[in-house]
């Protein structure tokens, strides 16, 4: 069973996000870049399937040179090889542009399952996985917390929690699965894993290598334009409830929620 995992590098979730003076982007200095947390679930699930069925796990990342570190992390966890799509023309690509670049790499690989995170915790789009599945003309199974591949490796049964219920969905393979929290507990890279990762193949591709042109996937092809980025709206200062005892405070809070906030 051959599996592909798409990786995105994102700011660590501890990061305080600051809008850059141009109002179009965020300040990228002093950011600790990490593997998108949802992608980690994809890597882990791919490795578990490999352990059961054999085969190879290829990770595909897109972004500047620093994304190499994230790909090496996945290789240290146990993935077999990596591809980095690195081209300055992709820096401000939108979802479709990025999906086209990923598809250009993946269409030439042999695969049964593609994993992506259900969304990147940076732009929070949650669209690239579905766009990639559309471009490759394979089924998509999104926001998945359980994956069961049939013994013959030809079909898959997955669980998708929706509001108030869980859908069990069956699909033929190949298919694309977007990983949701709850799918698994990702492993840590071991020290021998980290040593081995240094020797695993990691290819870099430019748009030209993929036969793509910046006009079709770069900033100029953006369908969604950012007009302005701003910090989140500030909330007005709140009230600290006064009282001698916890009971008094509780009574005061209940009254305010009912009469002032009209929230209950």
């Amino acid at each position, binding site marked *: 069973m051959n599996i592909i995992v798409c990786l995105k590098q994102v700011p660590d*979730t*501890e*990061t*305080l996000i600051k809008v850059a003076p141009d109002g179009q982007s965020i300040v990228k200095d002093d950011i600790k870049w990490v593997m998108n947390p*949802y992608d980690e679930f994809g890597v882990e699930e791919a490795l578990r399937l490999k352990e059961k069925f054999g085969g190879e796990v290829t990770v595909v990342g897109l972004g500047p040179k620093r994304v190499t570190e994230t790909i090496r992390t996945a290789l240290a966890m146990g993935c077999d090889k990596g591809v980095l799509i690195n081209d300055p023309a992709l820096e401000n690509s*939108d*979802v*479709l542009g990025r999906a086209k670049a990923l598809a250009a790499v993946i269409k030439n690989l042999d695969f049964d399952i593609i994993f992506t995170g259900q969304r990147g*915790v*940076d*732009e*929070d*789009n*949650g669209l690239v*996985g*579905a*766009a990639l*599945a*559309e*471009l490759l003309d394979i*089924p998509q*199974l*999104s*926001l998945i917390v359980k994956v069961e591949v049939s013994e013959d490796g030809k079909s898959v*049964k997955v669980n998708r929690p*929706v*509001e*108030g*219920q*869980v*859908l*069990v*969905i*069956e*699909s*033929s393979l190949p298919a694309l699965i977007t990983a949701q*929290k*709850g799918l698994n507990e990702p492993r840590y890279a071991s020290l021998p894993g980290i040593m081995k990762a240094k020797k695993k193949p990691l290819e870099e591709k430019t748009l030209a290598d993929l036969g793509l042109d910046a006009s079709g996937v770069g900033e100029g092809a*953006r*369908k*969604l*334009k*950012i*007009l302005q*980025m*701003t910090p*989140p709206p500030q909330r*007005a200062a*709140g*009230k*600290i*409830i006064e009282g001698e005892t916890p*009971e008094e*405070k*509780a*009574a005061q*809070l*209940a009254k305010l*929620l009912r009469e002032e*906030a009209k929230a209950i």
Partner: protein
Amino acid sequence: MAQGVMTIAEQRDGEIRKISYELVSEGRRLADSLGQEVTTLLLGSNIKDKASTLGHYGADKVLVAEDPRLDPYTTDAYVAVIAELVKANDPAILILGASVQGKDLSGRLSAKLGVGMAQDCTVFAIEDGNLVATRPIYAGKAYAKVTFSDSFPQMATARPNVMTLNEPDTSKSAEVVDASFTLDDSAIKTKVADVMKDESGKVDLTEADKIVSGGRGMKGPENYNILEALADVIGATVGASRSAVDAGWRPHTDQVGQTGKVVSPNLYIACGISGAIQHLAGMSTSKVIVAINKDPDAPIFQKADYGVVDDLFKVVPPLTEEIKKLL
């Protein structure tokens, strides 16, 4: 030329979901500022008799696509039918809900149509005749105002619970029309094999009007019963912080925050939650925020409308009793 606002209704088990009315309400406001019409697309099987209520919220027309293969929802069948109907009707604006179904659908549909798509928006406006959408990014640590570049329909999803619901007006009715479409069996590659219902009947966090959330300060899974008691009295859903979920006290589906659910209830009561930046990111669009924590320096108090600095175990049970007296 592309014209009008189209919304995609969501139904489950033959009942139209609240998000559908939120979309029609917002679609009505956008269409009014454009001087155009709102069409809602309703897909399902034996669903036509439910279409008229969409008119009460402001839809001019409901296009009903009925087929046994459109119930329950599958990505493949919905994308095939909606793409065809969008092309045939050529709307200027296409709005879906940022529910699980809407998020699944929007990615595939936008790629199929080859258009830009603004996910999980909290504000829509019309500027110079074009849709301008505001969406939280980095889980709400920043906001982006976006527009579309020569991309029709202008496609977006709306965060549940955020768009103001119109007062339903039963004197208003929508024209209900059977949609004509083709659906080829070969287009459907996935199948819903089973539906496991949550028998608790509790409202999902993303749709909840009120949430009572507990964090590390709960000290253990056995103590959540005091939050459940409060939640029962006010009709709330119980949530949790990441640390409570990672400790195994609560299931993953209960997690509020950057790597959990992003919620927008009317009332959010945070108990024993210090307010890590990832948690604050996930609940900052709540309308009224209450924090109960014994640490006066906890960052959650910076976001709270009402703060109680005290031991939650001494505050929450009497709070439940006091609210009972008021209701």
